[in-house]
């Protein structure tokens, strides 16, 4: 153990050398990540503060239960676990890219970086789908005594408390024709829009299967703001990480690091990428699990 011996002999703080045996760039990257952790921390803690100031908060299992191509099947947390695994795997490929860099193995770096980029893009794609699904989702919500159809946006939240059967029935009486048509359409796919449009309000109400619709009250508006704000900010980090990785890939391709004699830049990009994964672990915890 030559290294250990030297470690003990060296006076790390006496000047003329790095007390941490790290070049300044890596040190700066670490402290930058630390500061970024405070940015994310501030976001998540704000979210916690607001959540604790509410009497009601939606159960994430109810909100995040869709899967691409699975229609209306109730699959809580299924999609987000796919996203999580994508990110973990891309972190692993990044580790391998950094390791290849240590050995000066250019082809290895290129191969693993490419996989990392693919992972990053896949994650961004998943996130785009999830956002799209949530924003355009059609959820029956009781607002001001009538039923409204809204998606999950920054201004509206359809995941409030469940409305009792009687209250929902009463609300249907006051609901406009157009909304009733879409509600009936959700319950009964057999009838086309035109056929439904021809029915009267009362006939439509009969078509609507209230028990399947899960009509809810409006939920806390802040939910949407924080969800899109924080996952968006995280997504922005993933995006910039992908850009950084692409730049690294091109630089590796052009032998920049080979000529420089070391692949330390890949290490720094790696630190950033792992940090993105790390943040996701906490976003995952705060929004999807608890």
């Amino acid at each position: 153990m030559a290294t250990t011996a030297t470690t003990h002999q060296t006076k790390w703080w006496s000047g003329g050398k790095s007390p941490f045996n790290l070049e300044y760039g890596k040190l700066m990257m670490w402290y930058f990540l630390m500061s970024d952790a405070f940015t994310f921390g501030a976001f998540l803690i704000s979210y916690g503060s607001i959540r604790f100031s509410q009497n009601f908060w939606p159960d994430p299992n109810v909100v995040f239960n869709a899967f691409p191509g699975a229609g209306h099947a109730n699959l809580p947390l299924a999609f987000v676990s796919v996203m999580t695994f994508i990110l973990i795997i891309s972190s692993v490929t990044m580790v391998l890219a950094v390791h290849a860099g240590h050995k000066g193995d250019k082809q290895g770096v290129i191969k693993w970086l490419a996989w990392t980029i693919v992972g990053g893009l896949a994650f961004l794609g998943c996130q785009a789908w999830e956002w799209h699904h949530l924003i355009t989702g059609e959820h029956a919500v009781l607002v001001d005594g009538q039923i409204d159809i809204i998606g999950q946006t920054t201004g509206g939240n359809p995941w409030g408390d469940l409305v009792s059967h009687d209250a929902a029935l009463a609300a249907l009486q006051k609901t406009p024709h157009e909304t009733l048509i879409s509600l009936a359409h959700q319950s009964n796919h057999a009838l086309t829009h035109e056929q439904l449009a021809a029915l009267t309000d009362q006939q439509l109400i009969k078509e609507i299967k209230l028990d399947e619709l899960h009509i809810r009250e409006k939920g806390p508006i802040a939910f949407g703001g924080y969800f899109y704000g924080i996952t968006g900010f995280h997504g922005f980090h993933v995006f910039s990480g992908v850009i950084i990785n692409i730049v690294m890939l091109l630089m590796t391709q052009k032998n920049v690091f080979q000529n420089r004699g070391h692949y330390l830049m890949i290490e720094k990009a790696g630190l950033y990428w792992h940090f993105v994964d790390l943040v996701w672990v906490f976003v995952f915890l705060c929004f999807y699990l608890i």
Partner: protein
Amino acid sequence: MSEAMNVHSGVAAAHAVHHDDHGHHEQSFISKYVFSMDHKTIGKQFLITGMVWAIIGGLFSVLFRLQLGYPDQSFPILETFFGHWAKGGQIQPEFYYGLVTMHGTVLVFFVLTAGLSGTFANLLIPLQIGARDMASPFLNMLSYWFFFIAGIVMLASIFVHTGPASGGWTMYPPLSALRQAGEGQKIGTDLWLISMALFIVSSLLGGLNYISTILNMRTKGMSMTRLPLPIWAMFFTAVLGVLSFPVLLSGAILLLFDRNLGTSFYLSDIVINGEILPNEGGSAILYQHLFWFLGHPEVYIILLPAMGMVSEILSVNSRKPIFGYMAMLGSLFAIAILAFLVWAHHMFVTGLNPFLGSVFVLLTLLIAVPSAIKVFNWLTTLWRGNIRFTPATLFAIGFVSLFISGGLTGIFLGNSTIDIHLHDTMFVVAHFHIVMGVASFFGMFAGVYHWFPKMFGRYLNNTLGYMHFWVTMIGAYLIFWPMHYQGLAGIPRRYLDKKGWVSFNQFGELDKMITVVSIIVFAVQLMFVFNFFYSIFKGRKVTTPNPWGANTLEWTTKINPGHGNWEGEIPEVHRWPYDYGKDGRDFIPQTEPVGANESKH
């Protein structure tokens, strides 16, 4: 392993060769003075930009002081310059709020953060630790230019039609979150937020650089406990900035969302102009938490560099070792930690949980301990010293005086029960202007007078310096001392006009006096600016590399050091920087090896 080392030294050699190529060519004006990567030039850039901003910010305060001192008087010249903002020669409410907000923002962030720590961290860190430059000169340059762009955006916000942000420098929602709330809440506030975001990037780039430079780039022998105190202060300043500015960034981003994307982070249950807003569930207090999580460390970001420089200047000019070096370090460290734990003492009356408030009271009052340690150490450093009253020394002593008077009123405000009466009054204005505003300015002036010879190879004019000190010192107390009485009487801050309160009428003459003095003090600062620029070109030349007889490394360089600071090898350090008046010698530079019979310090 040896192979790896060879690779490294090979790289080092390659770099050196590469760099020499540059050195032999004449640098163009642009690469030498504009996009410079030399830490000394960047420091000067920060200083001069900071001075420009200080004049702008100071002018704002003169303008609103005119309103406060002479609320009924008309100043037609104001209308000439400001048009409808000063209709009939009288400052209009929107203008007044804009002035107050910009005064705070500009002085806190652009002058006392960037102008102070930007200047002296850049100038002193490499010089005093014995490094050729910052760890990353390029990011250092970026740091300045982000600051510059932030300044441009802020300046632009003053000239937009609806005027600059006017929600106070703390930019509390819901006022700042709603466009309908007033002229200043329109584009001006968006520009303010964007400018702050850019400023945060700048301070982050700077801070990361300072930290990694201090840790990694110290010369041989310069262990952490041999660092001069300014460096320790800048180090903690940078740590505070790196950990707290991001939280402001989060708060600002959420505020931008609330303003532009219809989210409800800070908004709930609001009726404005008869319109009920759909926002629900947000909390305005949350913004204050986020803001002050930065905001409190921010006051130490402003104060610590001044503390560090004052320690150095007092020791050099009283020809005595600093009293209690390790205690100074310990108290800097304690202040840096406590800075993060006390933020909600700015929020006692917001509706904060009173019990939580009492925890914050306890933590806040703890700050008195390290602060007192520092004050006693400064005083004992001066005690029986062979003091040379240079302008720098005077300003350093002035700093100690202001820090004591301003710090004591902090104990009043830190108690939540007394704060119920005093919050948002002129008492608060008096407190923080003395302890963090004027005191930090004094630290900055002390630094400029002391290190001007290093920056420009010339001295500042001493006579003007003494005038500058005495007028500013007396003026500062004349301006801010009476504000304590006003505050105790209940006069609120930020009010345009208090004629409506009969009980406040007795303060009319006092307000006039404050206004007159602040105009005089402002004029004297202009005299300092004249002195500064005049001396750059015409000042008395420095003839010896070490004009103050100081121990630290920056005085071992040439009088006008080039990029790279030392021509030959970087000197090695053998002792701490405060060996003054030891073993019958006036001073012993850090580079001198410890002699065989030398006494211990």
